[in-house]
């Protein structure tokens, strides 16, 4: 190993150190690279399902649980009405309920929202009770009107 190559190596190390001490790159290094080992051992043993839960969070768990519940119902339920954002965000500001196609991908659950054409085809709905999402079946047109009125009356813009 000749001295000049060693000097170039040392200067390179210094340059890299300076680069990763620039605030934005330091933050990136700490957040994306160096913190990698802090939870890697916990994640190695995770099952595929646990990894899905970890990555997709509460909406995934929520839709999966509803689907499991719906599968136990007789007669079987096909379409779930999801509440509008203005309604549920005031109780659970950190949660965003996924759009229908993502719900279907997560769990095979078919969902709709109040602004969609097929809203009256829904035979189940989701509402918030005690800061928790609850599932309820819809068996008649009056049930549907009730839940739509409930959403409207309790939406942020109407409060």
């Amino acid at each position, binding site marked *: 190993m000749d001295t000049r190559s060693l000097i170039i190596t040392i200067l*390179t*190390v210094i340059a890299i150190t300076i680069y990763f001490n620039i605030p934005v*790159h330091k933050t*990136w*290094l700490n957040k994306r690279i160096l913190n990698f080992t802090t939870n890697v051992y916990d994640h190695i043993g995770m099952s595929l399902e646990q990894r899905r839960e970890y990555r997709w969070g509460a909406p995934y768990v929520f839709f999966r649980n509803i689907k499991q519940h719906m599968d136990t119902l007789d007669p079987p339920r096909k379409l779930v009405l999801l509440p509008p954002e203005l309604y549920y965000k005031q109780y659970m500001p950190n949660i965003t309920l996924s759009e*229908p196609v993502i719900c279907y991908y997560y769990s095979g659950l078919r969902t709709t929202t109040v602004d969609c054409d097929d809203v009256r085809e829904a035979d189940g709905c989701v509402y918030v009770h005690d800061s928790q999402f609850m599932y309820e079946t819809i068996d008649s047109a009056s049930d549907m009107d009730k839940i739509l009125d409930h959403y409207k009356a309790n939406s942020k813009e109407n409060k």
Partner: protein
Amino acid sequence: MNLAGLLFLILAQFFTGRGLLGMFNIKLKPIILFFVSEMIGVVMFSFIPMIIEFAHVPITKTSVLTSICITTVLFAIIPFKRYDFSVLKPANIKFTTPKLYELLMVFLLVFLMIPSLWRGFLYPAYSRDVLSGPEALAEYTLKEHSLDNSVFTVNLMKSTPNLLKPPFITDLQIIYKMFVHPFGKTWLSIIVVCFLVWLYHILREKLHPVLAGAGVLLLLSIPELYGYTYILLWDYSNMVFFFTGYYFLMKHFKTKQQNIFLFSCLMFGFATFIRLDTLLFIAPTGLLAAYILWKDKVKLSKIILNVALLGIIPFIFYFTWVEVFVKYYLPLNLSTVSELNLNPEHGYFEWFKAINKGLFFGGLNYVLYGLYIYIFLGVLIAETIFFRKQLSRDAAIPLIGVLIVYLCLPAMIYATAWFNMTTAKRGIFKAFPLMLLFMSNSTLLQRFSQLITDYENKKDKQKNVTTAQVKRKPNQTGRKKGKKLAKQ
């Protein structure tokens, strides 16, 4: 993870990509050939499930495996005569011991890539655009054996554009979920690693290893771009193939070989197959090509032919998807042409201003891209002030490429009504490797590189002189000569 499946795909992709390179008679150094072939093989495999669907054959493990084998064998056999097997002879295999600073750079780059590879492998796809489109389609294709599956029966009011995007991600997810891992995604890591190795090699051709490594480090450590080395989306792959198109276009300008030009057009075609709006950036590239060929006194008829090919080949990829597949094979009876937004609420200049303010020169620029754009601007300003008369064509072309991306980005508002700052934020990626290519060809960096090389080689000269002195019996004259040489 199914390692046998991964190994099978890696080999199959290599032979397919190598075959395509052979068909276009593209010659690369053996190790680089592997990485470039692999990268191209991945994108070529992304056509397979779509072609199976075209043939009305159910997409099953058997049909996909058979198609992969046929594709691999076909592409490996057709250009077989062009393969240069002499590189495999032990006498032709040269190995030079890497210097400590090279090892340091490689170690650092590998170290930075490990979390990306790990996250790519460990977690399922996450981004909303992919979950509401390609990922959902891929998952249900595995269950229902057709791209025209029950996902299209779900309420799609808010998701349609993502389902109508070309099946690049969908198809690769299908293949990798079938053969490698239930989450797919590994193909993205393959593209990223192969691209970075190739990029290092490109930079290494012009620069000292330390600067080449630093260049790759700069690109890899762009915070936003790094995220997309493991978050599944179109933009990283689009950037890679847009850059590949430019790189081979530059090669064509140097060699005037038509095969290289056609290969470049094909790479632009692949980039268009990944993101349809790439056509917007290819159109001005055609003007650039016309201008350079005209300057090189190429026949007018050939210029017209080449510019037409540069437009037509990528357009075929666009047309096949938008006007054939989406129209006749997907159940929605929709066309992505309806996505065009010819009369947007905010026009080109408003978006141009917003993108400049929010992404290039302020706003989130620093958080998203770190110092990368500023380093590029620094080199550009220095080059303009001190070396503008020495600006080589190799530096000018990628610079114009960057300018094209910069100017055309706001025009994406006319291509899709869904265009927003997030789209622009990722659209900028296309300019990043071109910026690096410009910097590596700039007189400033080349002189700096030469300075390092000269500094390093001085020692060798001294060493050689000293060795020569030791070998023969020193005499007065010899010593004097030796001292003189040492001083030099």
